[in-house]
């Protein structure tokens, strides 16, 4: 395979201007990943406050008002600040490398997409210091809690969301254009690595639904400041309308947060099973089906709000349909491992944990999809358990797996495998200790988003809190591993994983600042 040429190019600029003015996809990818890690710790510290308060029944540490602000900000920061930017960072690093492109299609726009984020999150975090406090209406910001009864800081929240939306749309346009237009000569759509495929579909979802989020927060702004009545029945509006428009955005959004993780796992499992991915085509079609179905299932979040019966049935069946393509994916991952020559390095451990634990989250989702059963589960800790299983050992484990997998190529050094294993096992125990008991307290009726609870839930809540502290602290080990690798890791070979396939492994280690200035010819495998 052809190597890169560096005619007419030079290395990175010196100093801070390298990062602020850069048009290099690797620099921008790094900034996204570091930003996301910082947000993970800010959002995580809010989870610490929540779990410390819930360690024992009764009000211990914080006032209920502040507790509400913590749950709200924790959700917003993790969704928009930690998970989404981490995936965009991985896409920035990997998509051009995996398709043999010199950079992203629109490099300056790429820089803009990133630099909007620090501004947006400064605005969001500043609300914590405002009179009346930060947003306290939950990350789903249902009207009228977020309109009539909102704290004054809601205005800043709205504009912060607008900025995040602009950033996501621009980033997604860039990724889609890169994938459609910048593939190495000879690389067809059905030759794309699955990480690229899942990101293509994710980018489509982002462009389709982020404008809907913009529309819904704009209507909120109008209701709060300009006297409209979109979400106020006194003027002929409907608070339930808010939920419809919000979930039309937010259901595809939850797939935005997990499809790229599917892609990462689909890259890692074949590498460490030393077998090609089982059912490549069905993986692509399953991903696309999940994306299309995500547009017609939104109201399963609203079964108890009072919808017509026809609506309940429609959304129940359409939701259950999603289990089919998801099942295809799980089947394919397991079949890829079947009779493979498996080894269990850190990325593979996280990937396998992803498959097992994401499936648990998927199955509890199926339980929640059944409308009559959902009447019992709605707004209990069972729901919290469900979406944390798909987001933490789902999305976050996927991201961590991807980072361990590609880190040697990025920085040219190998992480400490022993510490990586520690990181995995502590995270695995911590995550299950945190979220598994939530199923039980939820089924027993403990409501979510309340700072206090009845005595019979005390033991499980203490376990959950201990698990959360363990999981959170373990992530400091992750930071230590990353720093240690970059500072004094052992040099990594050209191909750190002997089963790894794909264009990204053909470039030298570490990947030079500019790669594929001349496109490689794809196909001579």
């Amino acid at each position: 395979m052809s190597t890169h040429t560096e005619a007419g190019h030079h290395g990175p600029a010196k100093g801070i201007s390298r990062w602020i003015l850069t048009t290099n996809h690797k620099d921008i990818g790094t900034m996204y990943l570091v930003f996301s890690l910082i947000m993970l710790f800010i959002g995580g510290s809010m989870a610490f406050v929540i779990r410390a308060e819930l360690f024992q029944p009764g009000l211990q540490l914080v006032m209920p008002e502040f507790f509400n602000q913590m749950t709200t900000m924790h959700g917003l920061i993790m969704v928009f600040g930690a998970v989404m930017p981490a995936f965009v960072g991985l896409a920035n690093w990997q998509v051009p490398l995996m398709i043999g492109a010199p950079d992203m299609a629109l490099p300056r726009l790429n820089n803009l997409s990133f630099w909007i984020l620090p501004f947006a999150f400064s605005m969001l975090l500043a609300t914590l210091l405002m009179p009346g406090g930060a947003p306290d209406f939950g990350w789903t910001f249902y009207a009228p809690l977020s309109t009539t009864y909102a704290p004054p800081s809601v205005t800043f929240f709205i504009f912060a969301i607008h900025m995040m939306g602009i950033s996501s749309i621009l980033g997604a346009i860039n990724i889609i254009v890169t994938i459609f237009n910048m593939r190495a000569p000879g690389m067809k759509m059905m030759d794309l690595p699955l990480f690229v495929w899942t990101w293509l579909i994710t980018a489509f979802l982002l462009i389709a639904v982020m404008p809907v989020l913009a529309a819904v927060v704009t209507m909120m702004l109008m209701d709060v400041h300009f006297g409209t009545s979109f979400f106020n029945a006194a003027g002929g509006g409907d608070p339930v309308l808010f939920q419809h428009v919000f979930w039309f955005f937010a259901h595809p959004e939850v797939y935005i947060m997990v499809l790229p993780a599917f892609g990462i796992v689909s890259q890692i499992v074949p590498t460490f099973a030393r077998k090609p991915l089982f059912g490549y085509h069905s993986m692509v079609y399953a991903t696309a089906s999940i994306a299309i179905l995500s547009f017609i299932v939104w109201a399963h979040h609203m079964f108890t709000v009072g919808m017509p019966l026809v609506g309940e049935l429609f959304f129940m069946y359409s939701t259950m349909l999603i289990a089919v393509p998801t099942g295809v994916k799980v089947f394919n991952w397991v079949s890829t491992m079947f009779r493979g020559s498996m080894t269990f390095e850190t990325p593979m451990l996280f990937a396998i944990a992803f498959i097992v634990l994401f499936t648990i989250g998927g199955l509890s989702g199926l339980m929640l999809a059944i409308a009559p059963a959902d009447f019992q589960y709605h707004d209990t800790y069972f729901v919290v358990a469900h979406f944390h299983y798909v987001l933490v050992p789902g999305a976050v484990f996927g991201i961590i797996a991807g980072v361990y997998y590609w880190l040697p190529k990025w920085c040219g050094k190998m992480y400490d495998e022993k510490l990586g294993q520690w990181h995995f096992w502590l995270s695995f125990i911590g995550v299950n200790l945190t979220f598994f008991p939530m199923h039980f307290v939820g089924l027993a009726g403990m409501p979510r988003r309340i700072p206090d609870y009845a005595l019979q839930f005390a033991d499980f809540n203490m376990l959950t809190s201990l698990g959360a502290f363990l999981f959170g602290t373990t992530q400091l080990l992750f930071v230590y591993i990353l720093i240690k690798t970059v500072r004094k890791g052992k040099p990594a070979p050209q191909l750190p994983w002997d089963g790894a396939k794909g264009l990204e492994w053909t470039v030298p280690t570490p990947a030079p600042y500019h790669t594929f200035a001349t496109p490689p010819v794809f196909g001579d495998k």
Partner: protein
Amino acid sequence: MAQQPAYYVPPQSHWPIIAAASLFFTLGGMAVLLHALQQEGSGLMGRVMLISGLMILAGMLTGWFAAVINETRQDLYSPQLDRSFRYGMSWFIFSEVMFFFAFFGTLFYLRVFAVPWLGGEGDKGLANMLWPQFNAVWPLLEAPNPEQFPPIKEIIDPWHIPFLNTILLLSSSVTLWFSHKALKRNDRDRTKLWLGITILLGLTFLALQIYEYAKAYNELDLTLRSGVYGATFFMLTGFHGAHVTIGSLILIVILFRVYLGHFSAEKHFGFEAGAWYWHFVDVVWIFLFTTVYLL
């Protein structure tokens, strides 16, 4: 041209960070201003932020586009990069489609579900017990609680200004097409003429729209505060009007560039992108005229 570069990867640029900062000052300024007005403050700081944000935004757009225009005129762009711009613009328009889709969906939901339920009809007609005297009709002249949301005297007759505006906007799409045809023939005079007419039609549309808004507020009591009819009416027509304004600005810049001798019969993506945007805004109007004014 000696050798087409493989793919133009621009050097470091200060425009993105300026763009991010301008966005922060514009939107942050709006937030500070609205927040202050809500707290009965003067909002001076918000105004200063907003105005400086908008000025940086305008400067940034001029500078960034000037940089891109310079690069394209130096022939740094390969056909592949031209394709990136085309794909990028198409997906951007798709995101705009989805933005309007959300508002049309809102109108649909309110008309078909929420308002009839409040009037006692259908599956959730129980909602009528909130305001038993409420009469669910569309156009909704009187909201369930008329004290909070004052009633509308009369709605706008679709067959006067709105119909005229429809004709104006539809013909502007045709004249823009003529202009494009002329550019492809390298007939620069006709290009300018038809483009100028398009811009005039667009500006007339906007003027009539402003006149209609003034009439709605002053004579018909049709305002943002008059319940969901007013809310959806101003939201949809307002965002559409904002897009016509942006489209007109784009076309004015394009006309200016035609006078400067930019574009060739074969390569004129700036022109085409502006035209795509204009046609998109036109299509939105057709839906808008039908669902907001007519039905």
